[in-house]
């Protein structure tokens, strides 16, 4: 059973998707069935954490079967300390997305919920893959549901959003495929646990560009504003909360772990890009005219910060980066869902048309305030812990980086407070009618657990940061 846990975590949502597509499930049951599957997924993950030995740095819950032998490719999956938290993030965010979509109601539910589940399975697969080709297969497989989820259920500008999204990501990931072929044949195996380090700069760049596009890092973020704005709220949440973490994970597991030399050589350029993204993203978030724009650009900035932690290349930075990945994932998901909920009430996300929503809507105000305050990293919040670790880590690479990072945190406070006040405070905006209700029970049931997890992490950030690394594998 223990050996099967990772495989089950991957296969369960995919099987759920197939069930929804192929079995004649009545329309009204589809949403609840998908939610059930995603909640079972969370349950399986909790069981996996229970069986996971955080005192060991070895690969756990693993399973390996040969796929094709002549090139040394196998179905090899398993968990490390840091990956199991990201799997958990995926499972939780996937469940929240399913629940929100069920509550909001989506056209063509069988296709929609099937694709959501398939996406969850593929992302879990990326975090669990211990074979480079399996990793790539899941990495690409994520794109299939995303493309359709944005293209079919997205907003008015969805065509342009999907085209730019696909052009960017396909270009990035095919460069990675070329790098994978060369690296794997050089090593004689595609098994990540057996592949030795390589000093080839070109290979490193092949991987790094793919991850930089997916994250996205400045200047590869051209697809971000359209995709985050035009997707359904829960898909935006998954994109910025979970999919972007795939890129960070890729940096950690492959680019940094397998290419120590090039990582060292390219550290400064990558940290420069991350810094630009950090500051530029914050400024754009401050100027963004709508809720989603703020969250989208804050995501660009936060990915810059996580990259800081990763390329600090020390335990402080890694631990901080993993904690920050989990934090940012939960915050992004919550904020995008809240954006969706506000948009349902006001029929717009334009900040100039919103305002005064706190009056008579205590639940909305409380949830948004709590999330926002964690997001702007007030002391004692989990975000504070993550950012502190990252800055402490990157400080060892040079104090200048830490200064830029600290400045960006101030900017984060600015855009987050602007968002909160533009939605909740000020005079009542023209788009906000008195008939717009407070958050309903179902909506609270979706976002309160997410905020709850954030509060738990605020109380005990070491749950993640102290249980991720015992040195890189």
């Amino acid at each position, binding site marked *: 059973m223990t050996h099967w846990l990772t495989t089950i975590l991957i296969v369960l949502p995919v099987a759920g998707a197939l069930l929804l597509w192929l079995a004649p499930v009545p329309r009204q049951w589809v949403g609840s069935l998908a939610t059930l599957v995603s909640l079972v997924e969370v349950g399986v993950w909790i069981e996996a954490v229970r069986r996971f030995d955080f005192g060991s740095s070895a690969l756990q819950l693993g399973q390996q079967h040969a*796929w094709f032998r002549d*090139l040394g490719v196998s179905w090899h999956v398993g968990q490390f300390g840091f990956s199991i938290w990201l799997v958990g993030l995926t499972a939780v965010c996937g469940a929240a997305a399913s629940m929100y979509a069920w509550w909001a109601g989506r056209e063509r539910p069988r296709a929609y919920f099937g694709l959501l589940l398939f996406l969850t399975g593929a992302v879990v697969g990326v975090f669990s893959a211990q074979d480079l080709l399996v990793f790539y297969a899941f990495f690409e497989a994520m794109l299939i549901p995303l493309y359709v989820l944005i293209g079919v259920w997205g907003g008015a500008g969805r*065509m342009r959003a999907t*085209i730019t999204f*696909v*052009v960017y990501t396909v270009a990035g990931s*095919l460069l990675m495929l070329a790098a994978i*072929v*060369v690296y794997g*044949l050089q090593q004689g195996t595609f098994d990540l646990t057996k592949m030795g380090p390589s000093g080839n700069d070109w290979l490193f760049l092949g991987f790094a560009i793919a991850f930089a596009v997916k994250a996205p890092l400045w200047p590869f973020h051209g697809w971000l504003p359209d995709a985050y704005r035009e997707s359904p709220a829960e898909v935006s949440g998954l994109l910025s909360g979970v999919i972007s973490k795939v890129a960070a994970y890729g940096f950690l597991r492959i680019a940094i772990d397998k290419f120590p030399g090039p990582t060292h050589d390219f550290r400064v350029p990558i940290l420069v890009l991350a810094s630009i993204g950090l500051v530029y993203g914050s400024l754009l978030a401050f100027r963004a005219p709508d809720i989603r724009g703020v969250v989208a650009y804050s995501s660009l900035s936060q990915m810059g910060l996580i990259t800081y932690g990763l390329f600090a290349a020390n335990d402080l930075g890694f631990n901080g980066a993993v904690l920050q990945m989990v934090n940012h994932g939960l915050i992004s998901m919550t904020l995008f869902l809240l954006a969706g909920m506000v948009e349902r009430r006001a029929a717009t996300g334009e900040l100039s048309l919103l305002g005064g929503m706190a009056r008579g809507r205590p639940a909305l105000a409380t949830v948004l305030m709590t999330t926002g305050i964690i997001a702007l990293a007030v002391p004692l919040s989990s975000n504070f812990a993550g950012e502190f670790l990252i800055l402490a880590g990157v400080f060892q690479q040079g104090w200048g980086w830490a200064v830029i990072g600290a400045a960006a945190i101030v900017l984060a406070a600015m855009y987050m407070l602007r968002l909160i006040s533009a939605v909740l405070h000020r005079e009542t905006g023209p788009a906000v009618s008195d008939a717009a209700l407070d958050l309903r029970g179902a909506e609270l049931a979706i976002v309160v657990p997410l905020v709850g997890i954030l509060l738990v992490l605020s109380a005990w950030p070491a749950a993640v940061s102290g249980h991720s690394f015992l040195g890189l594998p």
Partner: protein
Amino acid sequence: MIQKPHIDWFALSPSLAMIAAAGALLLVAVFVPRRRRKQAAATLAGAGFLAAFVFAVVLAAKSPHGTTEVVDAVFRDRWSAVAQVLIAGCGVVAVLLSYGEHWRDEHVAEYYALLAAAGAGMAFFVQAANLMTLFLGLEWFSISLYVLCAIDIDLVGSLEAGLKYLIIGAVGSATLLFGSALLYGATGQLSFDKIGAAAHPHDSLLVLGLALVLAGLAFKSSAAPFHMWTPDAYTGAPTPVTAFMSSATKVAALVVTYHLLVTAFPTEQHLWTWAVAGIACASLAIGNVAALAQRNVKRLLAYSSVSHAGFMLIPIAAANALGERALIYYLIPYCAMSLGAFGVIAARERELNAPVTLENLAGFGWERPFLGASMWVFMLGFLGFPLTGGFIGKFYAFAAAYRHGWWWLIVVGVAGTIVSAAYYLAVVRAMYFRDSAELQLAPAGGSPPRDAALAVGVALCLAITVGSFFAVQPLIDVAHSAANALPF
């Protein structure tokens, strides 16, 4: 008294099964009453291809060591037998796709007879072991295909397609024939292995012959710059014929190209690897860029087939053991995707009674979930996405190129794939992102015709496309033992 050579009838059995079916079908055209002719003809053709499939499988199993039979005229080895399995399999699916086509029933039996004859020709062609049988096989299946392209004279462009294919195909055949003559002149030999043994290095006559033969074969695999006939012929021909041409012809041409190159020209390898790589790059560039501009889906897929010729020439250019496996493996999902995609187009065509353009596909994915989802899978397969065999095929092709030391060929392939994403995903976009309310053209009326045979054909293709992703090892084992028949 004339001495008769020993004839290994079993080695010829796949070809013979199909030619026998073709002969019987001509009798069906005369003797079976018109109202039952369509059914009888399709059944018989299907049975012929199926028999050929079985014979080819047995032949592959019983020919572990490559030999030449019938006075060095044909190879009996796994390499060609596996190709025959693929060709016969394509034939079976093509029959399923053809069944629902709106044929005029006076020619339906002749149609199937020609299809079976083309299959027989290809099966003979892939076994060719000397220049005579090579040319004979080529003309045999080409002539059948010329007529098949033009068979539906009611269809706009069908006659044009046949004529264009005939003229350009004739240029290709002439090129091949001229090349063969030069090769014979240079070496005094007809059979491939003796040409290889007799060749002197740096013999310009031989090199010229090699170039011409290679060009002649490239016409058939529709590799650029010898692809000029492809878009017109693919668009104008009845769609099931296009499906068969795009899959089986490509198998035959590519498999023979490699077989010929390694048996007859081992000493010229330094030349032909570069030549093939050049053709591959040209095909990737031209096919992918030209496909971007297409609105007609058949034409789009025609250019996509040019680009795939380029992809499958990469392992040929690599000329190593990995490349041999890559070629045979890649052909399996490629055939399935190609047949399946054209099958779906045929279904849409029958529904609309009009050529299928990207606009005409609006809402198709939602109205016909099975066909739409299948088309989606085929497009992702062409694009080389995971969960389809197309991904593993591209992966192996790139691996073969790298093993040869040509990382730049990987870069060209990757660039081609990035471009191709635009048009393959355009098909998905057309099917799913637009609503059928946007459709300018009313469907032909009533609910779409039920077409169980086509659905079975597409389902088979779907199963192979997805299955080949999961069952890589068994297929690679087959490809491996097929490649063992070759000299290196």
